[in-house]
Protein backbone atom coordinates (compact mmCIF):
# COMPACT_ATOMS: atom_id res chain seq x y z
CA UNK A 1 0.00 0.00 0.00
CA UNK A 2 2.82 2.44 0.85
CA UNK A 3 4.08 2.72 -2.73
CA UNK A 4 0.69 3.02 -4.38
CA UNK A 5 -1.18 6.18 -5.24
CA UNK A 6 -2.71 8.47 -2.66
CA UNK A 7 -5.90 10.47 -2.82
CA UNK A 8 -5.22 13.90 -1.41
CA UNK A 9 -7.56 16.85 -0.85
CA UNK A 10 -5.20 19.33 -2.48
CA UNK A 11 -5.32 23.04 -3.13
CA UNK A 12 -4.12 25.34 -5.85
CA UNK A 13 -0.95 27.15 -4.81
CA UNK A 14 -0.43 29.06 -8.03
CA UNK A 15 -1.20 29.16 -11.73
CA UNK A 16 1.07 30.84 -14.20
CA UNK A 17 0.89 31.27 -17.94
CA UNK A 18 3.83 29.86 -19.87
CA UNK A 19 3.46 30.50 -23.58
CA UNK A 20 0.32 28.70 -24.70
CA UNK A 21 0.23 26.64 -21.49
CA UNK A 22 -0.66 27.00 -17.83
CA UNK A 23 1.77 25.93 -15.15
CA UNK A 24 -0.27 24.75 -12.18
CA UNK A 25 1.22 24.13 -8.75
CA UNK A 26 -0.87 22.15 -6.29
CA UNK A 27 -0.30 21.62 -2.59
CA UNK A 28 -0.78 17.87 -2.28
CA UNK A 29 1.31 16.45 0.56
CA UNK A 30 2.53 12.89 0.34
CA UNK A 31 2.54 12.57 -3.42
CA UNK A 32 6.01 14.01 -4.04
CA UNK A 33 7.76 11.34 -1.97
CA UNK A 34 6.32 8.56 -4.10
CA UNK A 35 6.76 10.17 -7.50
CA UNK A 36 9.23 8.96 -10.10
CA UNK A 37 9.74 10.48 -13.56
CA UNK A 38 6.90 9.51 -15.91
CA UNK A 39 4.24 9.22 -13.24
CA UNK A 40 1.03 11.19 -13.68
CA UNK A 41 -1.75 12.58 -11.50
CA UNK A 42 -5.50 12.42 -12.06
CA UNK A 43 -7.34 15.56 -11.02
CA UNK A 44 -11.01 16.11 -10.28
CA UNK A 45 -12.11 19.26 -12.06
CA UNK A 46 -14.98 21.71 -11.95
CA UNK A 47 -15.44 21.99 -8.18
CA UNK A 48 -17.86 20.17 -5.86
CA UNK A 49 -21.10 20.74 -7.76
CA UNK A 50 -19.65 20.20 -11.19
CA UNK A 51 -21.22 17.96 -13.80
CA UNK A 52 -17.73 16.91 -14.92
CA UNK A 53 -17.67 13.25 -13.98
CA UNK A 54 -14.26 11.99 -15.04
CA UNK A 55 -10.73 12.61 -13.85
CA UNK A 56 -8.21 14.52 -15.97
CA UNK A 57 -4.72 13.05 -16.33
CA UNK A 58 -1.56 15.18 -16.32
CA UNK A 59 2.09 14.22 -16.41
CA UNK A 60 3.94 15.31 -13.31
CA UNK A 61 6.34 18.09 -14.23
CA UNK A 62 7.94 18.67 -10.83
CA UNK A 63 7.41 17.70 -7.23
CA UNK A 64 8.71 19.20 -4.03
CA UNK A 65 8.58 17.30 -0.77
CA UNK A 66 9.42 20.31 1.37
CA UNK A 67 7.42 23.23 -0.05
CA UNK A 68 6.63 25.96 2.47
CA UNK A 69 2.98 24.86 2.48
CA UNK A 70 3.62 21.12 2.36
CA UNK A 71 4.54 18.89 -0.54
CA UNK A 72 3.66 20.22 -3.97
CA UNK A 73 2.97 18.75 -7.40
CA UNK A 74 3.35 20.78 -10.59
CA UNK A 75 1.74 20.12 -13.95
CA UNK A 76 1.70 21.93 -17.29
CA UNK A 77 -1.63 22.04 -18.99
CA UNK A 78 -2.98 22.98 -22.36
CA UNK A 79 -6.58 24.14 -22.36
CA UNK A 80 -8.53 21.57 -24.32
CA UNK A 81 -12.11 21.30 -23.03
CA UNK A 82 -14.13 22.14 -19.94
CA UNK A 83 -11.90 20.46 -17.34
CA UNK A 84 -8.62 22.01 -18.42
CA UNK A 85 -10.33 25.38 -18.95
CA UNK A 86 -11.51 25.25 -15.32
CA UNK A 87 -8.09 24.29 -13.95
CA UNK A 88 -6.39 27.08 -15.87
CA UNK A 89 -8.30 29.87 -14.13
CA UNK A 90 -8.38 28.71 -10.51
CA UNK A 91 -7.09 30.97 -7.78
CA UNK A 92 -4.88 29.97 -4.86
CA UNK A 93 -6.71 27.89 -2.21
CA UNK A 94 -9.23 26.37 -4.63
CA UNK A 95 -9.62 22.75 -3.49
CA UNK A 96 -8.57 20.19 -6.12
CA UNK A 97 -8.73 16.49 -5.35
CA UNK A 98 -5.53 14.83 -6.51
CA UNK A 99 -4.94 11.12 -7.09
CA UNK A 100 -1.37 10.07 -7.69
CA UNK A 101 1.28 9.22 -8.46
CA UNK A 102 -0.20 6.93 -11.11
CA UNK A 103 1.12 4.68 -13.85
CA UNK A 104 4.43 3.04 -14.59
CA UNK A 105 7.27 5.52 -14.72
CA UNK A 106 10.18 5.59 -17.17
CA UNK A 107 12.67 2.86 -16.41
CA UNK A 108 16.15 4.15 -15.76
CA UNK A 109 19.35 2.45 -16.86
CA UNK A 110 20.70 0.30 -14.03
CA UNK A 111 23.13 2.17 -11.78
CA UNK A 112 26.03 0.11 -13.05
CA UNK A 113 25.51 1.30 -16.60
CA UNK A 114 27.21 4.62 -16.00
CA UNK A 115 27.94 6.60 -19.08
CA UNK A 116 24.72 5.67 -20.88
CA UNK A 117 23.72 8.30 -23.44
CA UNK A 118 20.03 9.17 -23.29
CA UNK A 119 18.12 11.24 -25.85
CA UNK A 120 14.89 12.82 -24.58
CA UNK A 121 12.23 13.85 -27.09
CA UNK A 122 9.27 16.01 -26.10
CA UNK A 123 6.39 17.22 -28.25
CA UNK A 124 4.47 20.26 -26.97
CA UNK A 125 3.55 19.88 -23.28
CA UNK A 126 4.82 16.31 -23.62
CA UNK A 127 8.21 17.61 -22.52
CA UNK A 128 6.83 18.18 -18.99
CA UNK A 129 7.81 14.78 -17.49
CA UNK A 130 11.22 14.78 -19.18
CA UNK A 131 13.00 17.30 -16.95
CA UNK A 132 12.72 15.24 -13.77
CA UNK A 133 13.80 12.29 -15.90
CA UNK A 134 16.83 14.23 -17.14
CA UNK A 135 17.84 15.00 -13.57
CA UNK A 136 17.49 11.36 -12.54
CA UNK A 137 19.54 10.27 -15.55
CA UNK A 138 22.27 12.81 -14.89
CA UNK A 139 22.52 11.79 -11.27
CA UNK A 140 23.30 8.31 -12.60
CA UNK A 141 26.08 9.66 -14.73
CA UNK A 142 24.16 9.52 -18.01
CA UNK A 143 24.66 11.92 -20.86
CA UNK A 144 21.41 13.72 -21.71
CA UNK A 145 20.44 15.37 -24.99
CA UNK A 146 17.08 16.99 -25.66
CA UNK A 147 14.96 17.36 -28.77
CA UNK A 148 11.94 19.58 -28.18
CA UNK A 149 9.33 20.18 -30.83
CA UNK A 150 5.97 21.91 -31.13
CA UNK A 151 3.61 23.46 -33.65
CA UNK A 152 4.91 26.95 -32.86
CA UNK A 153 7.28 28.74 -30.46
CA UNK A 154 4.59 29.40 -27.84
CA UNK A 155 3.85 25.66 -27.66
CA UNK A 156 7.39 24.70 -26.76
CA UNK A 157 7.75 23.99 -23.08
CA UNK A 158 10.91 24.01 -20.98
CA UNK A 159 13.62 24.95 -23.47
CA UNK A 160 15.51 26.84 -20.75
CA UNK A 161 15.16 23.94 -18.29
CA UNK A 162 16.55 21.66 -20.98
CA UNK A 163 19.50 23.93 -21.70
CA UNK A 164 20.40 23.87 -18.04
CA UNK A 165 20.47 20.09 -17.90
CA UNK A 166 21.49 18.73 -21.26
CA UNK A 167 24.64 18.40 -23.33
CA UNK A 168 22.73 19.65 -26.37
CA UNK A 169 19.22 20.91 -27.04
CA UNK A 170 17.66 20.81 -30.51
CA UNK A 171 14.41 22.67 -31.10
CA UNK A 172 11.95 22.27 -33.96
CA UNK A 173 8.67 23.99 -34.78
CA UNK A 174 6.22 23.17 -37.55
CA UNK A 175 5.99 26.86 -38.52
CA UNK A 176 9.64 27.78 -38.01
CA UNK A 177 8.92 30.35 -35.27
CA UNK A 178 11.70 28.77 -33.19
CA UNK A 179 14.58 26.43 -33.98
CA UNK A 180 14.56 24.30 -37.10
CA UNK A 181 11.39 24.32 -39.18
CA UNK A 182 10.02 20.79 -39.19
CA UNK A 183 9.45 17.81 -36.94
CA UNK A 184 11.47 16.36 -34.06
CA UNK A 185 12.18 13.33 -36.21
CA UNK A 186 13.85 15.56 -38.84
CA UNK A 187 16.69 16.32 -36.41
CA UNK A 188 16.59 13.24 -34.18
CA UNK A 189 18.90 11.04 -36.33
CA UNK A 190 21.70 13.64 -36.18
CA UNK A 191 21.24 14.21 -32.46
CA UNK A 192 21.34 10.48 -31.78
CA UNK A 193 24.42 10.02 -33.96
CA UNK A 194 26.33 12.88 -32.33
CA UNK A 195 25.42 11.67 -28.84
CA UNK A 196 25.98 7.98 -29.59
CA UNK A 197 22.57 7.52 -28.11
CA UNK A 198 21.88 4.27 -26.23
CA UNK A 199 18.29 4.94 -25.25
CA UNK A 200 15.49 7.30 -26.26
CA UNK A 201 12.71 8.58 -24.01
CA UNK A 202 9.74 10.28 -25.62
CA UNK A 203 6.49 11.93 -24.62
CA UNK A 204 4.12 13.74 -26.93
CA UNK A 205 1.39 13.10 -29.48
CA UNK A 206 0.88 9.49 -30.60
CA UNK A 207 2.02 10.21 -34.17
CA UNK A 208 5.26 11.66 -32.83
CA UNK A 209 5.84 8.64 -30.59
CA UNK A 210 5.36 6.31 -33.52
CA UNK A 211 7.80 8.28 -35.68
CA UNK A 212 10.38 8.52 -32.86
CA UNK A 213 10.11 4.76 -32.29
CA UNK A 214 10.88 4.19 -35.98
CA UNK A 215 13.88 6.56 -36.02
CA UNK A 216 15.28 4.99 -32.84
CA UNK A 217 14.77 1.49 -34.22
CA UNK A 218 16.87 2.33 -37.28
CA UNK A 219 19.78 2.83 -34.90
CA UNK A 220 18.92 -0.33 -32.98
CA UNK A 221 17.65 1.69 -30.00
CA UNK A 222 14.38 1.22 -28.14
CA UNK A 223 12.34 4.34 -27.41
CA UNK A 224 10.48 4.40 -24.11
CA UNK A 225 7.27 6.21 -24.99
CA UNK A 226 4.78 7.83 -22.61
CA UNK A 227 1.43 7.56 -24.40
CA UNK A 228 -1.69 9.65 -23.99
CA UNK A 229 -4.93 7.70 -24.28
CA UNK A 230 -8.34 8.98 -23.29
CA UNK A 231 -8.86 8.04 -19.64
CA UNK A 232 -11.94 8.00 -17.43
CA UNK A 233 -10.52 6.87 -14.06
CA UNK A 234 -6.72 6.78 -14.30
CA UNK A 235 -6.54 3.99 -11.68
CA UNK A 236 -7.25 0.87 -13.73
CA UNK A 237 -10.92 0.13 -13.03
CA UNK A 238 -12.79 1.34 -16.14
CA UNK A 239 -10.97 -0.23 -19.14
CA UNK A 240 -11.36 2.85 -21.36
CA UNK A 241 -7.67 3.66 -21.85
CA UNK A 242 -6.54 0.56 -23.71
CA UNK A 243 -4.25 0.17 -26.71
CA UNK A 244 -2.86 -2.87 -28.53
CA UNK A 245 0.52 -3.89 -27.07
CA UNK A 246 2.61 -6.97 -27.84
CA UNK A 247 3.62 -8.91 -24.73
CA UNK A 248 6.75 -10.96 -23.97
CA UNK A 249 4.94 -14.00 -25.36
CA UNK A 250 4.45 -12.28 -28.72
CA UNK A 251 0.69 -12.00 -28.21
CA UNK A 252 -1.18 -8.72 -28.67
CA UNK A 253 -3.42 -7.63 -25.83
CA UNK A 254 -5.60 -4.58 -25.23
CA UNK A 255 -3.60 -3.13 -22.35
CA UNK A 256 -4.62 -0.38 -19.91
CA UNK A 257 -2.34 2.59 -20.43
CA UNK A 258 -3.07 4.00 -16.97
CA UNK A 259 -1.66 1.08 -14.99
CA UNK A 260 0.47 -0.86 -17.49
CA UNK A 261 1.64 2.46 -19.01
CA UNK A 262 1.71 5.30 -19.72
CA UNK A 263 5.33 4.38 -20.52
CA UNK A 264 5.71 1.51 -22.98
CA UNK A 265 8.67 0.31 -25.01
CA UNK A 266 7.86 1.83 -28.41
CA UNK A 267 8.60 -1.40 -30.26
CA UNK A 268 5.81 -3.17 -28.34
CA UNK A 269 3.01 -0.75 -29.20
CA UNK A 270 1.12 -1.51 -32.42
CA UNK A 271 0.98 2.14 -33.39
CA UNK A 272 -0.77 1.61 -36.75
CA UNK A 273 -3.52 -0.30 -34.97
CA UNK A 274 -4.19 2.10 -32.08
CA UNK A 275 -7.95 2.74 -32.08
CA UNK A 276 -8.69 -0.78 -33.32
CA UNK A 277 -8.64 -4.30 -31.96
CA UNK A 278 -6.22 -5.91 -34.41
CA UNK A 279 -7.02 -9.41 -35.65
CA UNK A 280 -5.31 -12.01 -33.47
CA UNK A 281 -5.50 -9.92 -30.29
CA UNK A 282 -6.14 -12.10 -27.24
CA UNK A 283 -9.92 -12.37 -26.94
CA UNK A 284 -10.63 -10.56 -30.23
CA UNK A 285 -13.97 -11.25 -31.88
CA UNK A 286 -13.91 -14.16 -34.29
CA UNK A 287 -16.22 -14.74 -37.24
CA UNK A 288 -19.56 -16.03 -36.01
CA UNK A 289 -18.66 -15.10 -32.43
CA UNK A 290 -19.10 -11.85 -30.59
Amino acid sequence: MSDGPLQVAGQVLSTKRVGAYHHLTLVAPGIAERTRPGHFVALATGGPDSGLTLRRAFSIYKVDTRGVYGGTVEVVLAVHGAGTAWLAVQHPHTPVDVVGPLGRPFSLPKDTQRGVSATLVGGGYGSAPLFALAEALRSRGCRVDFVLGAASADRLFGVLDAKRMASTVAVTTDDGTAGTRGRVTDVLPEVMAAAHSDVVYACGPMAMLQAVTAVAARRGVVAQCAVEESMACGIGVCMTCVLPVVGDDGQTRMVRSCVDGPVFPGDRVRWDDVGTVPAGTVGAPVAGGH
Partner: protein
Amino acid sequence: MSFHVRTVEPPRVEAPHIDLTARLGDVVLPNPVLTASGCAAAGRELAQFFDVADLGAVVTKSIMLAARSGRATPRMAETASGMLNSIGLQGPGIDAFLEHDLPWLHEHGARTVVSIAGGSVEEYAELARRLRGAPGMLALEVNISCPNVENRGLVFACDPDAAAAVVGAVRRHTAPAVPVLAKLSPDVTDIVSIARACVDAGADGLSMINTLLGMALDLDTMRPVLAGVTGGLSGRAIKPVAVRCIWQVHAALPQVPILGMGGVASGRDAVELVLAGASAVSVGTAIFHDPSAPVRVLAELTEVLDARGFTTLADAVGHAHRQ
Protein backbone atom coordinates in the same frame (compact mmCIF):
# COMPACT_ATOMS: atom_id res chain seq x y z
CA MET B 1 -1.13 32.55 3.12
CA SER B 2 -1.64 29.22 4.84
CA PHE B 3 -2.60 25.89 3.41
CA HIS B 4 -4.36 23.20 5.35
CA VAL B 5 -4.33 20.09 3.29
CA ARG B 6 -5.11 16.59 4.39
CA THR B 7 -4.75 13.20 2.90
CA VAL B 8 -8.21 11.86 2.13
CA GLU B 9 -8.71 9.27 4.84
CA PRO B 10 -11.31 6.62 4.21
CA PRO B 11 -14.15 7.86 6.42
CA ARG B 12 -15.04 5.86 9.47
CA VAL B 13 -17.54 3.28 8.32
CA GLU B 14 -19.35 2.21 11.44
CA ALA B 15 -21.96 4.30 13.15
CA PRO B 16 -22.94 2.28 16.19
CA HIS B 17 -26.41 3.72 16.58
CA ILE B 18 -27.75 2.53 13.22
CA ASP B 19 -28.20 -1.10 12.26
CA LEU B 20 -26.94 -1.10 8.67
CA THR B 21 -27.46 -4.80 8.06
CA ALA B 22 -28.64 -5.33 4.52
CA ARG B 23 -30.38 -8.42 3.18
CA LEU B 24 -30.23 -9.73 -0.36
CA GLY B 25 -32.22 -12.93 -0.34
CA ASP B 26 -30.66 -15.24 2.22
CA VAL B 27 -27.44 -13.27 2.30
CA VAL B 28 -26.85 -10.77 5.06
CA LEU B 29 -24.38 -7.96 4.48
CA PRO B 30 -22.92 -5.81 7.27
CA ASN B 31 -23.80 -2.68 5.33
CA PRO B 32 -25.68 -1.79 2.15
CA VAL B 33 -22.96 -0.22 -0.04
CA LEU B 34 -21.46 -2.27 -2.86
CA THR B 35 -19.51 -1.46 -5.99
CA ALA B 36 -21.24 -1.63 -9.39
CA SER B 37 -20.09 -4.18 -11.92
CA GLY B 38 -17.50 -2.85 -14.34
CA CYS B 39 -16.61 0.13 -12.18
CA ALA B 40 -14.36 -1.60 -9.64
CA ALA B 41 -12.64 -4.28 -11.76
CA ALA B 42 -12.02 -7.11 -9.25
CA GLY B 43 -11.27 -4.94 -6.23
CA ARG B 44 -7.46 -4.83 -6.36
CA GLU B 45 -7.07 -1.30 -7.65
CA LEU B 46 -9.54 0.15 -5.15
CA ALA B 47 -7.75 -1.58 -2.28
CA GLN B 48 -5.08 1.09 -2.71
CA PHE B 49 -7.63 3.62 -1.45
CA PHE B 50 -9.69 1.76 1.15
CA ASP B 51 -10.17 -1.66 2.67
CA VAL B 52 -12.45 -3.61 0.32
CA ALA B 53 -13.65 -5.65 3.32
CA ASP B 54 -15.33 -2.48 4.63
CA LEU B 55 -17.90 -2.60 1.83
CA GLY B 56 -21.13 -4.53 1.92
CA ALA B 57 -19.64 -6.44 -1.02
CA VAL B 58 -17.58 -6.02 -4.15
CA VAL B 59 -19.46 -6.70 -7.38
CA THR B 60 -16.95 -7.79 -10.01
CA LYS B 61 -16.76 -6.82 -13.68
CA SER B 62 -19.00 -9.15 -15.70
CA ILE B 63 -17.00 -12.23 -16.57
CA MET B 64 -17.54 -14.44 -19.63
CA LEU B 65 -16.31 -17.95 -20.41
CA ALA B 66 -13.47 -16.92 -22.71
CA ALA B 67 -11.04 -14.01 -22.60
CA ARG B 68 -12.44 -10.93 -24.38
CA SER B 69 -10.51 -8.08 -25.95
CA GLY B 70 -13.43 -5.68 -25.75
CA ARG B 71 -14.15 -3.04 -28.37
CA ALA B 72 -11.95 -0.53 -30.17
CA THR B 73 -11.26 2.91 -28.74
CA PRO B 74 -12.57 5.54 -28.11
CA ARG B 75 -14.55 3.62 -25.54
CA MET B 76 -15.91 6.55 -23.57
CA ALA B 77 -17.32 10.01 -23.85
CA GLU B 78 -18.04 12.36 -21.00
CA THR B 79 -21.58 13.76 -21.14
CA ALA B 80 -23.50 16.21 -18.96
CA SER B 81 -23.29 14.76 -15.43
CA GLY B 82 -22.43 11.36 -16.78
CA MET B 83 -20.62 9.35 -19.38
CA LEU B 84 -21.10 6.92 -22.22
CA ASN B 85 -19.09 3.71 -22.30
CA SER B 86 -18.66 1.00 -24.85
CA ILE B 87 -16.08 -1.31 -23.31
CA GLY B 88 -17.41 -4.54 -24.82
CA LEU B 89 -16.91 -6.62 -21.67
CA GLN B 90 -13.12 -6.81 -21.87
CA GLY B 91 -11.96 -9.48 -19.46
CA PRO B 92 -9.68 -12.43 -18.84
CA GLY B 93 -12.33 -15.20 -18.98
CA ILE B 94 -13.61 -17.41 -16.20
CA ASP B 95 -10.46 -19.55 -15.75
CA ALA B 96 -8.19 -16.60 -15.01
CA PHE B 97 -10.92 -15.06 -12.87
CA LEU B 98 -11.17 -18.19 -10.74
CA GLU B 99 -7.41 -18.50 -10.54
CA HIS B 100 -6.46 -14.91 -9.73
CA ASP B 101 -9.34 -12.56 -9.02
CA LEU B 102 -11.77 -14.40 -6.77
CA PRO B 103 -9.00 -15.81 -4.53
CA TRP B 104 -7.52 -12.33 -4.12
CA LEU B 105 -10.88 -10.93 -3.01
CA HIS B 106 -11.37 -13.86 -0.65
CA GLU B 107 -7.92 -13.42 0.91
CA HIS B 108 -8.59 -9.76 1.48
CA GLY B 109 -11.80 -10.41 3.33
CA ALA B 110 -14.08 -9.00 0.65
CA ARG B 111 -17.55 -10.36 0.28
CA THR B 112 -17.93 -10.89 -3.45
CA VAL B 113 -20.88 -10.79 -5.81
CA VAL B 114 -19.70 -12.32 -9.07
CA SER B 115 -21.23 -10.81 -12.20
CA ILE B 116 -21.52 -13.09 -15.21
CA ALA B 117 -22.36 -12.38 -18.85
CA GLY B 118 -22.91 -14.61 -21.84
CA GLY B 119 -23.99 -14.76 -25.44
CA SER B 120 -26.26 -17.76 -25.01
CA VAL B 121 -28.29 -19.44 -22.28
CA GLU B 122 -25.75 -22.26 -22.30
CA GLU B 123 -22.83 -19.86 -21.71
CA TYR B 124 -24.56 -18.44 -18.62
CA ALA B 125 -25.34 -21.96 -17.38
CA GLU B 126 -21.74 -23.06 -17.90
CA LEU B 127 -20.48 -20.01 -15.99
CA ALA B 128 -22.78 -20.85 -13.10
CA ARG B 129 -21.49 -24.45 -13.09
CA ARG B 130 -17.88 -23.28 -13.10
CA LEU B 131 -18.55 -20.93 -10.19
CA ARG B 132 -20.36 -23.50 -8.08
CA GLY B 133 -18.64 -23.80 -4.74
CA ALA B 134 -16.07 -21.08 -5.50
CA PRO B 135 -14.75 -19.82 -2.16
CA GLY B 136 -15.63 -16.23 -1.36
CA MET B 137 -18.59 -15.94 -3.73
CA LEU B 138 -21.56 -14.64 -1.82
CA ALA B 139 -24.03 -14.13 -4.63
CA LEU B 140 -24.25 -14.14 -8.41
CA GLU B 141 -25.35 -11.15 -10.45
CA VAL B 142 -26.52 -12.05 -13.94
CA ASN B 143 -25.83 -9.29 -16.46
CA ILE B 144 -28.53 -9.98 -19.02
CA SER B 145 -27.89 -6.78 -21.00
CA CYS B 146 -26.00 -8.84 -23.57
CA PRO B 147 -26.91 -9.68 -27.14
CA ASN B 148 -28.20 -13.23 -27.62
CA VAL B 149 -26.03 -14.60 -30.42
CA GLU B 150 -28.62 -17.31 -31.03
CA ASN B 151 -31.44 -14.83 -31.61
CA ARG B 152 -30.19 -12.10 -33.98
CA GLY B 153 -28.38 -10.32 -31.16
CA LEU B 154 -31.58 -9.43 -29.32
CA VAL B 155 -30.63 -8.34 -25.81
CA PHE B 156 -31.81 -10.88 -23.20
CA ALA B 157 -32.89 -8.14 -20.78
CA CYS B 158 -35.37 -6.76 -23.32
CA ASP B 159 -37.41 -9.93 -23.69
CA PRO B 160 -39.16 -11.55 -20.70
CA ASP B 161 -38.82 -15.08 -22.10
CA ALA B 162 -35.12 -14.76 -22.93
CA ALA B 163 -34.43 -13.12 -19.56
CA ALA B 164 -36.30 -15.89 -17.77
CA ALA B 165 -34.45 -18.59 -19.72
CA VAL B 166 -31.08 -17.20 -18.62
CA VAL B 167 -32.08 -16.67 -15.01
CA GLY B 168 -33.70 -20.11 -14.78
CA ALA B 169 -30.59 -21.82 -16.15
CA VAL B 170 -28.28 -19.96 -13.80
CA ARG B 171 -30.53 -20.67 -10.81
CA ARG B 172 -30.56 -24.40 -11.60
CA HIS B 173 -26.77 -24.60 -11.70
CA THR B 174 -26.09 -22.47 -8.63
CA ALA B 175 -25.92 -23.73 -5.05
CA PRO B 176 -29.24 -23.01 -3.29
CA ALA B 177 -27.53 -20.90 -0.60
CA VAL B 178 -26.14 -18.50 -3.20
CA PRO B 179 -28.67 -15.87 -4.25
CA VAL B 180 -29.02 -15.13 -7.96
CA LEU B 181 -29.66 -11.48 -8.80
CA ALA B 182 -30.94 -10.60 -12.27
CA LYS B 183 -29.57 -7.28 -13.49
CA LEU B 184 -32.22 -5.40 -15.41
CA SER B 185 -31.93 -2.90 -18.23
CA PRO B 186 -34.01 0.28 -18.04
CA ASP B 187 -34.28 0.27 -21.85
CA VAL B 188 -37.60 -1.61 -21.89
CA THR B 189 -41.21 -0.58 -22.19
CA ASP B 190 -42.34 -2.30 -19.00
CA ILE B 191 -39.61 -3.09 -16.50
CA VAL B 192 -42.10 -4.70 -14.11
CA SER B 193 -42.93 -7.45 -16.59
CA ILE B 194 -39.24 -8.28 -17.07
CA ALA B 195 -38.71 -8.20 -13.30
CA ARG B 196 -41.64 -10.55 -12.78
CA ALA B 197 -40.38 -12.95 -15.46
CA CYS B 198 -36.96 -13.10 -13.77
CA VAL B 199 -38.46 -13.68 -10.31
CA ASP B 200 -40.77 -16.37 -11.65
CA ALA B 201 -37.74 -18.04 -13.19
CA GLY B 202 -36.04 -18.18 -9.80
CA ALA B 203 -34.22 -14.88 -9.31
CA ASP B 204 -33.75 -14.22 -5.59
CA GLY B 205 -33.27 -10.52 -6.17
CA LEU B 206 -32.99 -7.85 -8.84
CA SER B 207 -30.17 -5.45 -9.62
CA MET B 208 -31.21 -2.28 -11.32
CA ILE B 209 -30.37 -0.35 -13.33
CA ASN B 210 -27.83 -1.12 -16.00
CA THR B 211 -26.81 1.72 -18.31
CA LEU B 212 -29.18 3.35 -20.81
CA LEU B 213 -28.30 3.14 -24.47
CA GLY B 214 -27.03 6.50 -25.68
CA MET B 215 -24.88 8.13 -28.31
CA ALA B 216 -22.77 11.24 -28.83
CA LEU B 217 -21.54 12.89 -32.02
CA ASP B 218 -18.30 14.79 -32.48
CA LEU B 219 -19.10 18.13 -34.11
CA ASP B 220 -15.61 18.40 -35.63
CA THR B 221 -15.61 15.06 -37.40
CA MET B 222 -19.41 14.92 -37.50
CA ARG B 223 -19.11 11.24 -36.65
CA PRO B 224 -20.01 9.20 -33.54
CA VAL B 225 -17.54 9.78 -30.69
CA LEU B 226 -17.47 6.12 -29.67
CA ALA B 227 -15.81 3.50 -31.87
CA GLY B 228 -18.75 1.27 -30.95
CA VAL B 229 -21.15 4.05 -32.17
CA THR B 230 -23.61 3.62 -29.28
CA GLY B 231 -22.73 3.23 -25.59
CA GLY B 232 -24.19 2.90 -22.12
CA LEU B 233 -25.09 6.11 -20.29
CA SER B 234 -24.26 6.14 -16.58
CA GLY B 235 -23.56 8.55 -13.75
CA ARG B 236 -25.60 11.23 -11.99
CA ALA B 237 -27.60 11.95 -15.16
CA ILE B 238 -29.43 8.61 -14.86
CA LYS B 239 -30.35 8.63 -11.17
CA PRO B 240 -33.98 9.69 -11.77
CA VAL B 241 -34.39 6.73 -14.13
CA ALA B 242 -33.00 4.41 -11.45
CA VAL B 243 -35.36 5.82 -8.82
CA ARG B 244 -38.32 5.37 -11.15
CA CYS B 245 -37.43 1.77 -12.04
CA ILE B 246 -36.82 0.78 -8.41
CA TRP B 247 -40.05 2.48 -7.35
CA GLN B 248 -42.14 0.66 -9.97
CA VAL B 249 -40.64 -2.76 -9.33
CA HIS B 250 -40.76 -2.45 -5.53
CA ALA B 251 -44.41 -1.39 -5.75
CA ALA B 252 -45.25 -4.46 -7.83
CA LEU B 253 -42.96 -6.97 -6.07
CA PRO B 254 -42.44 -5.67 -2.52
CA GLN B 255 -40.99 -8.96 -1.23
CA VAL B 256 -38.18 -9.10 -3.79
CA PRO B 257 -34.89 -7.56 -2.65
CA ILE B 258 -33.44 -4.93 -4.97
CA LEU B 259 -29.79 -3.98 -5.34
CA GLY B 260 -30.15 -0.41 -6.57
CA MET B 261 -27.69 1.48 -8.75
CA GLY B 262 -27.58 4.34 -11.20
CA GLY B 263 -25.98 7.67 -10.49
CA VAL B 264 -25.21 7.18 -6.82
CA ALA B 265 -22.47 9.64 -5.87
CA SER B 266 -23.45 10.61 -2.33
CA GLY B 267 -25.17 9.29 0.76
CA ARG B 268 -28.25 11.30 -0.19
CA ASP B 269 -28.37 9.58 -3.58
CA ALA B 270 -28.03 6.18 -1.91
CA VAL B 271 -30.83 6.92 0.55
CA GLU B 272 -33.08 8.05 -2.29
CA LEU B 273 -32.71 4.63 -3.93
CA VAL B 274 -33.31 2.92 -0.57
CA LEU B 275 -36.49 4.91 0.08
CA ALA B 276 -37.70 3.90 -3.39
CA GLY B 277 -37.22 0.24 -2.48
CA ALA B 278 -33.56 -0.76 -2.76
CA SER B 279 -32.26 -3.05 0.02
CA ALA B 280 -28.67 -2.20 -0.87
CA VAL B 281 -26.96 0.16 -3.30
CA SER B 282 -24.04 -0.12 -5.74
CA VAL B 283 -21.71 2.77 -6.52
CA GLY B 284 -20.45 2.80 -10.12
CA THR B 285 -19.37 5.74 -12.23
CA ALA B 286 -18.83 7.90 -9.12
CA ILE B 287 -15.72 5.78 -8.46
CA PHE B 288 -14.10 7.25 -11.57
CA HIS B 289 -14.51 10.69 -10.06
CA ASP B 290 -13.58 9.67 -6.52
CA PRO B 291 -11.89 6.31 -5.93
CA SER B 292 -13.01 6.31 -2.31
CA ALA B 293 -16.63 7.06 -3.24
CA PRO B 294 -18.03 3.73 -1.93
CA VAL B 295 -16.76 4.24 1.64
CA ARG B 296 -17.65 7.94 1.52
CA VAL B 297 -21.19 7.10 0.38
CA LEU B 298 -21.46 4.61 3.24
CA ALA B 299 -20.40 7.17 5.84
CA GLU B 300 -22.76 9.79 4.40
CA LEU B 301 -25.66 7.35 4.12
CA THR B 302 -25.35 6.59 7.82
CA GLU B 303 -25.61 10.28 8.64
CA VAL B 304 -28.52 10.86 6.27
CA LEU B 305 -30.48 7.97 7.79
CA ASP B 306 -29.67 9.12 11.29
CA ALA B 307 -30.80 12.68 10.55
CA ARG B 308 -34.18 11.25 9.50
CA GLY B 309 -34.58 9.25 12.66
CA PHE B 310 -34.02 5.78 11.22
CA THR B 311 -32.41 3.30 13.61
CA THR B 312 -32.23 0.47 11.11
CA LEU B 313 -31.59 0.46 7.39
CA ALA B 314 -34.39 -2.08 6.97
CA ASP B 315 -36.96 0.51 8.11
CA ALA B 316 -35.88 2.85 5.34
CA VAL B 317 -36.16 0.29 2.52
CA GLY B 318 -39.20 1.27 0.46
CA HIS B 319 -40.21 3.82 3.09
CA ALA B 320 -41.37 6.32 0.44
CA HIS B 321 -44.14 3.89 -0.54
CA ARG B 322 -45.50 3.94 3.01
CA GLN B 323 -45.46 7.69 3.54
